[in-house]
C-alpha cells in the first residue's frame, strides 16, 4: 500500500500531468462536438446538431477523403522506400554510415521549413523548372505548385517521414541476429525464402508501427496542406482550424477533431491488419 502511494507520487508530475492535460483536451473536444460549451451562446446542452451540420457538408467529406488519401499514400510510400534501404544497410560497408546519416538528415528540418524549401524548388522560378528549361526538356517553366493531386504534399510527407520509418525499420532489421539468418540458410532457405519466412515476420511490428505513426502524423497535417496543397481542398486539420479560427465555430471544429481521431484510429487498424495479412500470405507460400 505504501509502495503504491510512492509510485503514485512519482508518476504524478510526469504521466499524471500528461494524462490530466490530454484528458482535459480530449474531453473538451468530445464535449464540444456534442454541443456542450457552446461559445456562441445559442444553445448549451447535449445535442447532435453540430454533427448534423458538419457531416452533411460536402467540404468536410472532401477533407476527410483527402486526408485519408494523403495519409495512406504517404505512409505506404515512405515505408516502401525505407524498407529496402534498411535491409540493404543491415550489414555495414564502406559509405553506409554516411548514407544512413544523410538519410536521417530530414529529421532535423522542421516541417514548415521543408514545405518552404520544396515550394522554392518546384516553384515557377524554382530549380526544377530552371534546370529542365535549361536542359531543353521543357520549352518554358510549368506551374507545379499546389497541384491538385497532392503530389507535393505526399512528397513532403515522404521526405520528412521516410527517415523516421528508416530508423524504426533498420532497428528491427539489425536486431535479427546473424546466426538466425545463417541457420535459415543452412537449413536450405534461399534469399527470398529467408526474407519471407524470417525477416518479414520479425520486422512486422516495426513496419506496422512506422505505417501507423506516419499515417497519424500525415492525417493531422496542417502546414504542408496550407503551404503546398491545392487551394480548393482542405485537410482535416486545416478545415478544423478554419472552422474554429475564421468562422468561430468551435463545436463544428470539435466534430472535425473527433472525426480526425476516428480516421487516425481506423487508418491505424486498417494498416496494421493489412500488413498482418501480407506477412501471413507471403509466409504461407511454399
Amino acid at each position, binding site marked *: 500500500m505504501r*509502495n503504491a502511494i510512492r509510485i503514485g507520487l*512519482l*508518476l*504524478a*508530475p*510526469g*504521466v499524471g*500531468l*500528461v*494524462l490530466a*492535460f*490530454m484528458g482535459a*483536451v*480530449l474531453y*473538451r*473536444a468530445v464535449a*464540444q462536438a456534442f454541443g456542450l460549451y457552446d*461559445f456562441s451562446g445559442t444553445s448549451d446542452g447535449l445535442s447532435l446538431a453540430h454533427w448534423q451540420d458538419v457531416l452533411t457538408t460536402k467540404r468536410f467529406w472532401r477533407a476527410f477523403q483527402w486526408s485519408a488519401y494523403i495519409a495512406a499514400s504517404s505512409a505506404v510510400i515512405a515505408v516502401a522506400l525505407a524498407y529496402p534501404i534498411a535491409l*540493404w544497410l543491415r550489414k555495414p560497408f*564502406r*559509405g*553506409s554510415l*554516411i*548514407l544512413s546519416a*544523410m538519410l536521417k*538528415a530530414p529529421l*532535423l*528540418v*522542421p*516541417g*514548415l*521549413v521543408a514545405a*518552404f*524549401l*520544396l*515550394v*522554392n*524548388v518546384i516553384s*515557377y*522560378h524554382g530549380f526544377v523548372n*530552371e534546370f529542365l528549361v*535549361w536542359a531543353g526538356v521543357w520549352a518554358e*517553366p510549368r506551374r507545379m505548385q499546389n497541384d491538385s493531386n497532392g503530389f507535393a504534399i505526399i512528397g513532403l510527407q515522404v521526405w520528412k517521414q521516410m527517415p523516421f520509418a528508416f530508423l524504426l525499420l533498420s532497428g528491427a532489421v539489425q536486431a535479427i541476429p546473424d546466426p538466425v539468418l545463417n541457420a535459415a540458410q543452412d537449413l536450405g532457405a534461399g534469399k527470398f525464402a529467408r526474407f519471407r519466412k524470417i525477416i518479414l515476420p520479425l520486422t512486422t511490428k516495426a513496419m506496422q508501427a512506422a505505417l501507423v505513426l506516419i499515417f*497519424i502524423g500525415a492525417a493531422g497535417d*496542417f*502546414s504542408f496542406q*496550407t*503551404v503546398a496543397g491545392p487551394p480548393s481542398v482542405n485537410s*482535416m*486539420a486545416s478545415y*478544423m*482550424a478554419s472552422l*474554429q479560427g475564421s468562422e468561430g465555430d*468551435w463545436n463544428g*471544429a*470539435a466534430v472535425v*477533431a473527433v472525426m*480526425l*481521431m476516428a480516421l*487516425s484510429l481506423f487508418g491505424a487498424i486498417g494498416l496494421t491488419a493489412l500488413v498482418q495479412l501480407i506477412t501471413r500470405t507471403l509466409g504461407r507460400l511454399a
Partner: protein
Amino acid sequence: MRKSPFNTILSGLLIAVMTVWLAVPFGMALLWSLVDPSQAWSYPDILPPKLSFERWSLMWDSTSLPIAMFNSYSLAPMAGVGAVLLAMPTAYAFGRLEFKGKAVWQTLVLVPLIMPGFVTAIFFASLLFSMGFFARYPAILVGHVVMLLPYAVRILSVSFSLVRQDVVNAARDLGASPISVFRVAYLPVLKPGIFAAFLIVFILSIEEFALAFVVGSPDFTTIPTILYSYLGYNFIRPNAAVVALILVVPNVILMLILERLLQSANPAGISGKG
C-alpha cells in the same frame, strides 16, 4: 570480406542524389535570403541579379522577427528545464522500479505524440478561453512542456535504468548520504540523458507550430508562426527564406550535439565495456 561493386556504385550514387536532395533546397533558400530588395529575382534570370544582406537587416529592423526570436528562445529553455524536472520522478519509476501496470503507464505517457497537434492546440485554447486565461506566453509554455514531456520521460527512463545498482549499493555501504549517493552513483550516468532530454525539448519547442499558432493567434509570434505568415496568404519568398534559415540552422547544430550526447549515453560508454 567480399567487396561488392554493386554496393559501392549504389551507395556512391545515393550519396550523390542525397547531396542534391539536401544541397539544392538549402542553396536556393540561401540565395533567396540574399536577394537584394531593390532588384527582384524573376524569370528568366538564372541567378539573382544582385546579392546583399539588405534583406536580413531589413527583417531585423522592420518586422516582429526580434520579438519572435525572443519568444522562441526564451520559451524553449524554460520548456526544456520544466520538462526535465517534471519527467525525473516518472523516469526514475520507469527506469528503476517494477510495479503493476508499468507497461500501460509507459504507453500512456506517449499519448501527446499520437494526438494530432491541431486537435491538442485548438481544444487547449478552448479550455483557456473558458477559464478566461488569456496570458498566452505561460499558456504556450505549459503546452510545450506537456506535449514534449514524453520525449524527456523516454530518454531519462533509459538513463535511470543504466545506473548500476552495485555502484549505488557500494556508495551506501561506504556510508554515503542520499545526496552523496545521487552525486556519485546517479549523476554521472544521468548527465548525458539530462542534457539530451533538455536539448530535444528545446529543439522541438523552437520548431513547434500548431500550439503557438492557435493559442498565440492573432499576434503572439514565435519563429515558426512568423515563417508561416510569410508562407501563407502573404507570401514573401525572400523573407520566408531568411526566417527558414534562422529556424533551421541553430537546430541542426543542436541536433548534432544531441546525437553526440545520445551516443555517449549508451551503456558501453558509461561502464567502459562493450
